[in-house]
């Protein structure tokens, strides 16, 4: 029996939490998706996009805690993606029903949105920052941590050190973007 990964494990992708979950649920998901008459290659694409969406919603803080099992999330999001695929690839009118009525996906970001030009520029330049800067910004913006949390986690001397490091990194990124 495989242990369910915790939210923390997933957020940090600790011990390959996502890869393991992906492998563990794959055959069951394929069986589930076959009922919709999908080809295997499409199922794999959908399955991968399901994981990316699940991850995105953990990162952007829309899933703050897991109220169901990770499997319910994967199948819930997966079913949404299957319907999305069917809608765009057939003329049939399809009405979606949730996998688990207790799990609402309404609040989640489930369609892939491309970055605009400015955001792409920020993305490219973010990769040029030092690890330390990348890390602190990642902590701050993604993991919903306050500056005080970061100080505790990373044993910085005090919040002001964290604060000034964060502003310095942000300023550096802005300069790179505007260069």
């Amino acid at each position, binding site marked *: 029996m495989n242990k369910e990964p915790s939210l923390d494990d997933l957020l940090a992708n600790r011990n390959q939490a*996502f*890869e393991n979950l992906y492998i563990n649920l794959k055959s069951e998901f394929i069986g589930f998706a076959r009922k919709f008459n999908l080809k295997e290659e499409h199922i794999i694409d959908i399955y991968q996009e399901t994981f*990316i969406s699940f*991850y995105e919603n953990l990162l952007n803080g829309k899933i703050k805690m897991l109220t169901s099992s990770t499997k319910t999330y994967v199948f819930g999001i997966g079913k949404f993606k299957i319907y999305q695929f069917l809608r765009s690839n057939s003329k049939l009118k399809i009405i979606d029903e949730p996998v688990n009525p207790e799990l609402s996906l309404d609040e989640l970001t489930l369609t892939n949105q491309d970055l605009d030009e400015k955001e792409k520029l920020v*993305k490219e330049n*973010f*990769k040029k920052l030092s690890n330390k800067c990348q*890390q602190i*910004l990642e902590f701050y913006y*993604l993991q919903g941590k306050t500056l005080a949390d970061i100080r505790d986690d990373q044993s910085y001397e005090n919040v002001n050190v964290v604060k000034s490091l964060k502003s310095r990194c942000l300023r550096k990124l802005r300069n790179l973007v505007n260069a």
Partner: protein
Amino acid sequence: MSNKELIALYFEGELNSEQKIRFEELLRNDEDFREEVEFEQSVKLAIISIKKDNLRNKLHRLETPKEKKNYVFIGIAASIIIIAGVFGLLNTSQNYTNDELYAQYFEPYSNIIAPSSRGDASKNEINLAFRYYDSKNYKIASEKFESLFASTGTSYFLFYQAISELLIDNTDTAIKLLEQHKKYNDRLSNQTDWYLALALLKADQTDTAKKLLAEIIDNKSYNYESAKEILEKMD
């Protein structure tokens, strides 16, 4: 409260209703304020996008069928790539700096030694060191690994110390540690060259890095597919 603090609270999700009203008012009426919020929002989106790319690559790799054992063909293909790379015959349209390549390919090696379990985490030094590592507190993790290596002589601590040092930008120290780790044979030996190559890249020791990447490809050791990609991008 300054506007800066207000923005910080917004991203921390800690605005109270009064502050929320002020925040929205400034967003409507103060152009600098709006620009700052939009910039920080784009940073957040950019980071999410990078993390998504990383996961996507990992999942793609899981789906890539294992290479058939056609060593002759792979050998020839690899040699062609290396030769082409060395002579700059591959006309890649984009030039990558060493730093960019490093950033694209580097990710900390997972903790395969002491997976976190909440109960007994602080019971011994090894668990403690890896707990710091897992929670990205690489400075302390590195110190812990160093003393663990000193007291136990177990070589894989050198490896994790090196990765920790890489993550706090002490590239030269990391290179020394990885070179030291190469002298041992343990369950992480297969990974050493890959990280050493990336560290050399980061330290701008381009030629040495290239040579090592070519070795990784020849030996088909850890991440040799990515090693190929890097060499292709370098010329």
